């Protein structure tokens, strides 16, 4: 379970993309894909980032892995020798040793494995690149990793095309684990899989976390999956975190109107519980033209004058968690129950 050691601490992260036009490439606008977000992940903890397309959840995860350079903010990573390093400002060469400790699991198990490499080469590649062990040692490690993700060692010399989506995702997970990372960023790791296989991968991720003490940053749009993997959940809307709560509290007693609407939109697999939905009018705001005040106010059924003027800050609420809503303390919002 979680303890207090913070593995990752993100502070005031921003990623703005400039929109340029014309022959002089003048800047005509800015897309605030991620706009001032902060959160922490403890050792052995899963934090999920959820939200709809364009909310900035993937951009956030890419900034943390430094696939892209953030515009502002700090990304403090606690290394295995207990140093805090701000990843946000590092040069490429300085990032190298840190990359061993932060790994990624991809969404699409079909395009993320090189079809010309054997499974042993794919899983062993991070070891080879980082100069870990000799050939024999690397093969031993690959065998160990295959055990860990519950694939037979005999698969080592086969190629990816011989495997189903679920098996490929296990191979992707084995590769991510090769260098004993502390943090795994998983961007929609089960959304491309069939239901019966999805369940196997979710269980595997939970088991690996318990055995290896991994921390996960889990990026997903599917709230049902999120409920099965997360300790805490951060809900994003147009580049900002609007609510950050322990999983159970978020689902049972959401504090932000957007979270309430998201939860009510999830179809529940029980025809006897056809819910009265809150159908949100309109669409997710365009991040290049964010509405004034609270970005959610044009779609919010509780919005008042103040919501149009003032951007609500993410503040701690009674109990645990944080919410960014001017009316958080007066609203009683509906959540979803938990089956006995």
């Amino acid at each position, binding site marked *: 379970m979680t303890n207090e050691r913070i593995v990752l601490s993100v502070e005031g992260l921003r990623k703005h993309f400039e929109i340029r036009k014309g022959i002089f490439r003048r800047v005509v606008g800015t897309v605030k894909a991620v706009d001032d977000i902060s959160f922490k992940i403890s050792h052995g903890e*899963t934090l999920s980032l959820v939200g*709809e*397309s364009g909310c900035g959840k993937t951009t956030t995860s890419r900034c943390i892995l430094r696939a892209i350079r953030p515009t502002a903010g700090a990304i403090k990573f606690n290394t295995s020798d207990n140093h805090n390093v701000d990843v946000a400002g590092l040069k490429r060469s300085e990032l190298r040793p840190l990359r061993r400790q932060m790994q990624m699991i991809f969404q699409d198990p079909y395009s993320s494995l090189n079809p010309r490499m054997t499974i042993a080469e794919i899983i062993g590649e991070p070891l080879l690149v980082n100069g870990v062990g000799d050939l024999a040692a690397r093969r031993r490690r690959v065998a160990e990793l295959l055990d860990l993700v519950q694939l037979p060692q005999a698969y080592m010399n086969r190629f990816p095309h011989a495997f*189903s*989506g*679920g*098996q490929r995702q296990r191979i992707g997970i084995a590769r991510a684990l090769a260098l004993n990372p502390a943090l795994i960023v998983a961007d929609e790791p089960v959304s491309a899989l*069939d*239901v*019966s*296989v*999805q*369940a*196997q991968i*979710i*269980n595997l991720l*939970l088991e690996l976390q318990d055995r290896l003490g991994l921390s996960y940053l889990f990026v997903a*749009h*599917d*709230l*049902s*999956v999120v*409920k*099965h*993997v*997360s*300790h805490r959940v951060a809900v994003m809307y147009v580049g900002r975190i609007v609510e950050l709560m322990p*999983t*159970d509290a978020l*689902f049972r007693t959401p504090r932000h109107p957007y979270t309430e*609407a*998201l*939860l*009510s*939109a*999830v*179809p*529940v*697999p*029980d*025809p*006897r*519980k*056809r819910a009265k*939905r809150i*159908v*949100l009018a309109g*669409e*997710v705001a365009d991040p290049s033209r964010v509405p004034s005040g609270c970005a959610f106010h044009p779609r919010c059924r509780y919005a008042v004058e103040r919501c149009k003027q003032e951007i609500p800050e993410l503040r701690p609420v009674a109990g645990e968690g944080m919410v960014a809503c001017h009316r958080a303390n007066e609203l009683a919002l509906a959540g*979803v*129950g*938990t*089956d006995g």
Partner: protein
Amino acid sequence: MAEPILSVRDLKTYFRPDEGIVRAVDGASFDLYPGRTLGIVGESGCGKSVTARSILRIVDRPGKVEGGTMLLRRGDGRVVDLASIDEASSEMRDIRGGEIGYVFQEPMSSLSVFYTIGNQVIEAIRRHRKVSTKEARDRAIELLQLVGIPRAEQRIDSYSFELSGGLRQRVMIALALAAEPRILIADEPTTALDVTTQAQILELIRKIQVERDLAVVLITHDMGVIAEMADTVSVMYLGKVVESGSVDTIFHAPRHPYTQALLRSIPSVLAEPRSRLATIVGSIPHPYARPPGCPFHPRCQDAIPGTCDKNPPPATALDAEHEVRCFLCCEPAEISA
């Protein structure tokens, strides 16, 4: 209950590429009624989309409808067998779009980028109804308003790439409804959409269904969407309908081990946080390597050796609507046969 609009019996659609044969749909049967929704649910390779394409007779080569009947009661009372009609005939083209509207998963690849959405809706109207261009344009604006496109008078001259995913799917629905069909086939209509947009589109389909007394076929892998929308459900696995029944029966009294296992393995917002899911062992077999006997037997915990791996299980009717293909639900006499 009224007479079915479409009655499908023992539909067989096979693909015969050079490598062998894929029985994509292998004996599917179901009925469609006005104002009711049939949900077809299953995982990849179960044949749910090929079923939809078979009804419309737009199965891609080397696939072909090879058996069964699909009796469509047309608006004028005639009954046509869609399984035996020529897929390129003018009658089939009238039926496609005219009697049966369809919405596919990818609104971006289903809409042309060379024509405005208005052009496409107007074309669909004029294909099936004799009206002037002016009338068709007014009608197109009405349709776009009906499916909830804001400022339809202006948006009618937009191109599909100028619209968001949700709006594109609304345009697809407008296109499907252009000729006032009596059947709407929606194949994963909300899979590419965000959850709040999905809620809007499902609400829209329901609203239009009530207004027009449409028979809807909703094809999806999402049990949540099925629970929300369907009246009756067919569960498919590797080309076979393994169980069918009312939505309440399928979710609360399923009898086929696959249906039961599928329901246990879906993540739910109602679950305890961080709870493990029940799983189905193994994975879906490759289409060329379909197991003999019951297609689910290698993954089934209750499989009977010597029976389930040898013979295909017969259909057993448990009540008027509930039918299951599983030896566990058969009379003992049928098993020994």
